[in-house]
């Protein structure tokens, strides 16, 4: 790889990361605003119009807060945990394509790395994300943290399984692990409905979405940080920017899951394109963002609507409902695909 291309790649990565972190910051604003409206409140209004500068104010506040390291923590591991959470969350984003291949100077603008094993890459990176949480809980020397970290990691690995199983149906239909190829397999229409995987794979989609919400530790599966019983779960003892890093990791994971759901089940950036060339180039990005935004809305909507599970219900649901259903879906799909191609 030549030096100019390397520099261009670096610049692209920095720009994408900046956009990503801005989106993450505004996802928090979006959530606060939306949950407030669901609960007949106003949400943030003071900082800027409609509280739009709130994320900025939060960032400055968190950065200048006192950086407390409680006594009795396990030094290095305590510091490593938030970094590990954030790094894995952001790294998983590097294989997500946001639009069709648009090469400028030999570099694809809308994706950092187009890997043949894109989907497996995301799964492997997210399987490393467990450590951030389990180590945070363990190293903090607090009972709440330990319980939160333990619960969270057991929950995450259980639902990782269900998520992994539910994705096999998509692979059967598209025959590739490359995210771009999976999206391209969803081009075109059946009559009037688009060829999105969600229609033949609606059971798989349901399993994936549920498992993904649980894996990102969001309501109604946010047992690890159930504030009424565990204070704040694994990040009870974290303050200042270290707390913010866990927070950012959680929202980045939400965003990754939304992107993944869009790519795998909702045709990615495919949508009607029309008009002049400029519009044609921008519209796929618009469709992609719109679909991702719908998923973020769904996340918040679920949070605003459903009560929290009990821990034993949560584990039972994962193992006794999602895993068998995903397995059944997989057998059924493969049977139909086999008959179809025979």
């Amino acid at each position, binding site marked *: 790889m030549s030096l100019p291309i390397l520099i261009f790649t670096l610049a692209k990565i920095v720009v994408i990361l900046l956009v990503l972190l801005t989106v993450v910051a505004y996802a928090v604003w979006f959530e606060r605003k939306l949950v407030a409206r669901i609960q007949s409140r106003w949400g943030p209004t003071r900082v800027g119009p409609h509280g739009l500068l709130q994320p900025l104010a939060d960032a400055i506040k968190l950065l200048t807060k006192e950086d407390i390291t409680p006594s009795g923590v*396990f030094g*290095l*591991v305590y510091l*490593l945990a938030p970094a590990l959470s954030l790094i894995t969350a952001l790294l998983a984003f590097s294989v997500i394509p946001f639009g069709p291949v648009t090469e400028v100077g030999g570099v694809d603008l809308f994706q950092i790395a187009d*890997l*043949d*094993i894109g989907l*497996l*890459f995301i*799964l*492997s*990176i997210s*399987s*490393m994300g*467990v*450590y951030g949480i*389990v*180590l945070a809980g*363990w190293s903090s020397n607090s009972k709440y943290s*330990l319980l939160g970290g*333990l619960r969270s*990691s057991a929950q995450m*690995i259980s639902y990782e399984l269900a998520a992994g199983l539910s994705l096999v149906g998509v692979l059967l239909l598209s025959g590739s*692990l490359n995210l771009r190829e999976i999206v391209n397999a969803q081009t075109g229409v059946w009559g009037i409905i688009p060829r999105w995987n969600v229609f033949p794979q609606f059971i798989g989609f349901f399993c994936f979405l549920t498992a993904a919400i649980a894996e990102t530790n969001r309501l109604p599966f946010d047992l690890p940080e159930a504030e009424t019983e565990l204070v704040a779960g694994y990040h009870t003892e974290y303050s200042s920017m270290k707390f913010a890093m866990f927070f950012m990791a959680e929202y980045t994971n939400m965003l990754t899951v939304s992107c993944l759901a869009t790519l795998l089940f909702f045709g990615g950036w495919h949508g009607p394109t029309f008009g002049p060339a400029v519009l044609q180039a921008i519209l796929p990005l618009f469709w992609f963002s719109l679909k991702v935004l719908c998923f973020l809305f769904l996340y918040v909507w679920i949070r605003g609507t459903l009560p929290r599970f009990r821990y034993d219900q949560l584990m039972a649901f994962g193992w006794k409902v999602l895993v068998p259903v995903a397995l059944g879906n997989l057998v059924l799909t493969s049977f139909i695909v086999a008959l179809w191609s025979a």
Partner: protein
Amino acid sequence: MYPLFFFVFATAAVGFAINLLVQRHPIHSALSLIGVMASLASLYLMLGAEFIAAVQVIVYAGAIMVLFVFVIMLLNAGEEERTDRSRLAKYLGMPLFLVFLVTLATILSRQFSPNSMVQFGDFPGHTADIGRRLFQNFLLPFEVVSILILIAIVGAVVLARKETY
């Protein structure tokens, strides 16, 4: 550039492995082992075996090491207490290790000329290739794996339950 990457990841793997032995607290050792797994995955990746690299991370670094960390937490294992190492190991260990290393290096350098070194991307292990091998050529071993998993499930239950059940 490829040899450079190879040496970076190989050194990382060996470094983490040594750190694993030297560290006194089990959690640090476990973290080093995760580092070893990740470095090995990078080496597989460099050879061209993408799928194997991903599996290495998912199964070894992601699943098996979680179990290790759980066990360390479960037992609340503290720092290891150093025993006065046996005198035999103390005086003979290092020299024997060096002899072993030299022997290994000699054999390897005689067996393989420098030109026959594994090149980057020599083993294109695309997922589809592995699938074809696994589900057409090595069907029986694959089916036997399911029996192995079954036995392991039963074993896990037997190990973890109390006698009264």
